């Protein structure tokens, strides 16, 4: 333990920072050692729990790990010197501006403030663990947070009230917001006072045995759900009951505890449901009969599945193209609860007809539609905005999914939106909440798509030199802006556009480039081995980049990258980080999208060739129109993101470091 402790202490600068920064007050100094112990503790845990960290719903706020240590709005310390307060308060503005660390701050405050110094050694461990687990992922954090008993939650509210009664405290307002607005996390962390008092130090001693720690963590994990659910309720009560703080919070909270426990089961169910809802189910396996049947019942649109399905792709949905529309129209005005918002409906139809294609365009269209939806939204009676809006968004998302399976970037955007909604403060009025969400969506579109594209363009243009021959495949909007920008800078280069059936997206790009006066070479994908010999750079877009570095992109990109790699031509992938995804994938079969097989039948401009007319009559002939493929990481020389130019091996790093960013 000792040796490990030492090493961790050195290796993890962030964690060390976590341990020390809040300990700015001298009185907390003894915590340092216990903090270290906790670090070890934390490091053990990741292995022990979280069977699927990825699937943990993003409902909980993603905190900035950096922010975690910052002691934020301080509730008035009961037994403390007031010296501390301004110090802590000084961090507040940044925090509140960033909106980053709210979940933790009250917690830490609570601890520092509420817990007498005798409990000191106790505090920092959980404190540290919280912070570090935040870095590990939300599930972990929950685990650690779970430890406090629900009974203590009420006190936070009380603190808030207390603060309000003490106007001389500078940080009051901020604190109040935190305490009241963040229903779940802040409260949980406050707890460790009572029983934990004895158990915690014990636990620390036992962490020497890793198993023990694991057990503990598991137990805690089980409790999370209960407590996080209970938190809301209890907190609400806490606010309602404007008790004097002078009263022993313990006794009171125990009362609350019993009251809340009754409700717990119901709430728990609700939260479970919510959780389930939030777990994205893009991976529904369509060869699972029972699930497909269930999904059909729920589905808004009746879709007839094609009879001629390729055996290898039975797990992916394939519907008769165009069959959705009539049933959709029939249902549109009937089922009021289910039907999508008109803007969403419009976007869905545009997906269906293929008017909007490309990851960014689809994502922006979807977010704009959701903006409309939120603008027009009004909370039904006896419902909360958070719950109801989430459900509404879910409905609309499922509608979009039936129109065309979501791409990964859209999934990320939806996840972001839902997180924002879930994090809304209960105190906000409906109009405020709506405008807040809309502002968030705008910010997302600006920061994650527009600015990111600008940044990528700036970076990528530096890679284009005079005399270059640049090859691109299909039509990627980022690559297009790069080419246009490089051209406007007066660089002399040639563009080769490689295209493939059946989408022939490159033709659109060709037209746009020609329209801007850029000379191009155009060819089809089979000729890529010929044309690659005169090319010296390949720029490709991506639908998504997965955490093992593979690039999930328009079908054919992998072939182009492979050929480029074989001819020693560097392949550069231009992709915004919001398209990154934690999933890993090895081949293009497990997860993909099937297009309309009939698109393969017609060859534009070749009337003589109609061999396949009536192909569906033959039971032995199948047509496969795959939409995406997976490019192994070793074909990729470089990924150009708005955060810089990185090798594909750095994708998981970006995912880990930047996903905690509040915007996602």
């Amino acid at each position: 333990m000792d040796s490990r402790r030492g090493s961790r202490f050195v290796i993890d600068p962030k964690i060390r920072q976590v341990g020390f920064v809040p300990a700015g007050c001298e009185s907390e100094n003894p915590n340092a050692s216990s903090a270290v112990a906790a670090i070890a503790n934390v490091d053990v845990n990741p292995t022990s729990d979280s069977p699927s960290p990825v699937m943990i719903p993003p409902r909980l706020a993603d905190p900035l790990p950096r922010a975690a240590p910052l002691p934020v709005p301080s509730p008035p310390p009961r037994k403390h010197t007031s010296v501390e307060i301004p110090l802590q308060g000084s961090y507040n503005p940044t925090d509140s501006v960033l909106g980053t660390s709210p979940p933790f701050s009250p917690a830490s405050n609570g601890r520092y403030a509420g817990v007498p110094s005798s409990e000191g050694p106790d505090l920092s461990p959980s404190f540290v663990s919280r912070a570090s687990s935040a870095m590990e992922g939300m599930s972990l954090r929950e685990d650690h947070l779970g430890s406090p008993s629900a009974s203590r939650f009420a006190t936070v509210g009380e603190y808030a009230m207390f603060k309000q009664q003490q106007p001389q405290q500078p940080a009051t307002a901020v604190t109040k917001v935190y305490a009241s607005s963040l229903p779940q996390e802040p409260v949980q962390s406050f707890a460790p006072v009572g029983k934990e008092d004895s158990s915690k130090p014990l636990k620390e001693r036992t962490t020497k045995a890793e198993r023990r720690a694991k057990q503990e963590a598991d137990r805690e994990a089980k409790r999370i759900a209960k407590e996080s659910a209970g938190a809301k309720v209890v907190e609400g009560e806490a606010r309602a009951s404007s008790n004097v703080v002078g009263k022993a919070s313990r006794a009171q909270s125990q009362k609350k505890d019993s009251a809340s426990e009754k409700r717990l089961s119901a709430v728990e169910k609700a939260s479970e449901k919510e959780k389930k809802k939030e777990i994205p189910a893009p991976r529904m396996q369509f060869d699972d009969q029972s699930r497909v049947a269930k999904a059909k019942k729920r589905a808004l649109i009746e879709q007839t599945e094609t009879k001629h399905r390729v055996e290898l792709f039975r797990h992916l949905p394939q519907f008769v193209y165009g069959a959705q529309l009539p049933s959709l129209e029939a249902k549109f005005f009937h089922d009021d609860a289910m039907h999508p918002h008109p803007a969403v409906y419009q976007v869905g139809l545009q997906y269906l007809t293929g008017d909007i294609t490309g990851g960014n365009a689809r994502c922006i269209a979807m977010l704009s539609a959701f903006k409309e939806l939120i603008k027009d939204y009004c909370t039904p009676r006896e419902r909360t905005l958070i719950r109801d809006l989430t459900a509404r968004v879910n409905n609309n998302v499922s509608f979009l999914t039936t129109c065309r399976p979501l791409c990964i970037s859209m999934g990320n955007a939806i996840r972001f939106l839902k997180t924002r909604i879930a994090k809304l403060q209960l105190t906000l009025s409906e109009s405020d909440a709506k405008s807040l969400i809309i502002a968030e969506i705008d910010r997302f579109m600006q920061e994650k798509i527009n600015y990111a594209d600008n940044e990528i363009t700036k970076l990528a243009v530096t890679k284009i030199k005079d005399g270059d021959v640049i090859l691109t495949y299909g039509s990627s909007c980022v690559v297009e802006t790069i080419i246009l920008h490089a051209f406007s800078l007066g660089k002399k280069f040639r563009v080769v556009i490689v295209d493939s059936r059946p989408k022939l997206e490159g033709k659109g790009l060709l037209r746009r480039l020609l329209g801007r006066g850029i000379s191009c070479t155009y060819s089809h994908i089979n000729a890529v081995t010929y044309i690659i010999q005169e090319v010296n750079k390949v720029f490709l877009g991506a639908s998504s980049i997965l955490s093992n570095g593979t690039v999930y992109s328009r079908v054919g990109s992998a072939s182009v990258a492979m050929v480029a790699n074989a001819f020693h031509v560097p392949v550069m992938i231009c992709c915004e980080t919001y398209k990154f995804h934690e999933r890993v994938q090895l081949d293009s079969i497990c997860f993909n999208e099937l297009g309309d097989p009939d698109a393969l039948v017609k060859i534009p401009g070749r009337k003589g060739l109609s061999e396949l007319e009536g192909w569906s009559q033959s039971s032995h002939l199948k047509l496969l129109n795959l939409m995406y493929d997976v490019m192994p990481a070793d074909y990729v020389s470089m990924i150009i993101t708005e955060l810089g130019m990185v090798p594909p091996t750095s994708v998981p790093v970006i995912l880990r470091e930047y996903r905690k960013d509040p915007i996602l």
Partner: protein
Amino acid sequence: MVAPTLDAQAAVNDFIYKLKRRQVEGSLVTARLTAVLLRQVISQQRLASSAPAATLIETVKSVGLRIIAANPIELTVGNVVRRVLHIIREEEASLELKSLADVNNTILSDDEESEDASSFSAAVVAAANRNVLRAPSLHNLLESLPSSVTATCNASSGGESECKSKSGEKNSKVWRLKHSVIEGINELLQEIDSYHAQVAEQALQHIHHNEVIMTCGRSHAVLQFLLEAKKKRTFEVFVAEGAPRYQGQTLAKELADANLQTTLIADAAVFALISRVNMVVVGAHAVMADGGVMVPVGLHMIALAARRHTIPFVVLAGLHKLCPQYPQNPYIFMNDMKSPSDIIDFSDISDCLDGGIGSPSLQTVNPTFDFVPPDLVSLLITDIGGHTPSYVYRIVAEYYSAEDFVLR
């Protein structure tokens, strides 16, 4: 230079036009037509009694050079010309051997045995034998010089002896040469025709139950190969369309009609699906002497993908596709550029091209062939069996005369 007869001349010109206009395409058809044409030329050619074989070779060469020049990309033309030349040389040698044997016999019967004569004739027979059998090996190559010397001297002696014999005999000899050459060409034609069947016969050795085969475009050999295997085995086929000709669609339809489980995929999806494929089977346009193959465009990409997943890349090729040349920048010198209208309709982009800013230019690239280097080819299946690419040079040496590798 010996000119062919008028009739033959007309036929040659006709064939040249067809080749130039690309009205004759596909290696099998071209090979057949070339052989038939050469047969006609040879049969109509009047031969002088002295050195008839040389005349014949001259004629075939002159015709051959012209039809090769008509479509230098269609390498089978050159191959068939070389094969015919090889046949003529072989027949000449065997005839000489026969006549020598005759001469020998007469010498033996007429005169007393002189040691010189017998040893000389024995050497001649041996040399002629070597020529006929013509199994090129290092040993033969080393001995080629003395044998040719003896051959020439014995040819002159043969000529002397012929001078003595009657003119009718001469005529019969010329006739015999012509006849046997034409026989040889007929055999060649038969070989070309039966190539599909010969290759298909080997299908069962390579295709097993429940296999997944990928192919691209349409090749008659591949179709026959798969259909033959279908008789005994059940398996699945992925067919890539093969832009810009999209003959994969035809092949897919044909295979499905033969009750073979077929899936047509776009060319772009090849990489996505190749990981589930057990074998790639394609037809070749030409096989080069180093074992590399000229194939329809797009197959190099498939070969690379197959290599990535270590999937065997099997090429079906008839012997008439075997070229004695080594590829020298095959992408440029052995390729053909097709019409841009195959890949893009001018009307689609015409509005962008005229009167726009800066008058941009548009190039379209529509090559016909890919060259797959030998290291990407796992197996070559010809009508005489399966070979590795590294063995091709040896087959080349067997079927062509070294003198004809470069036609002049």
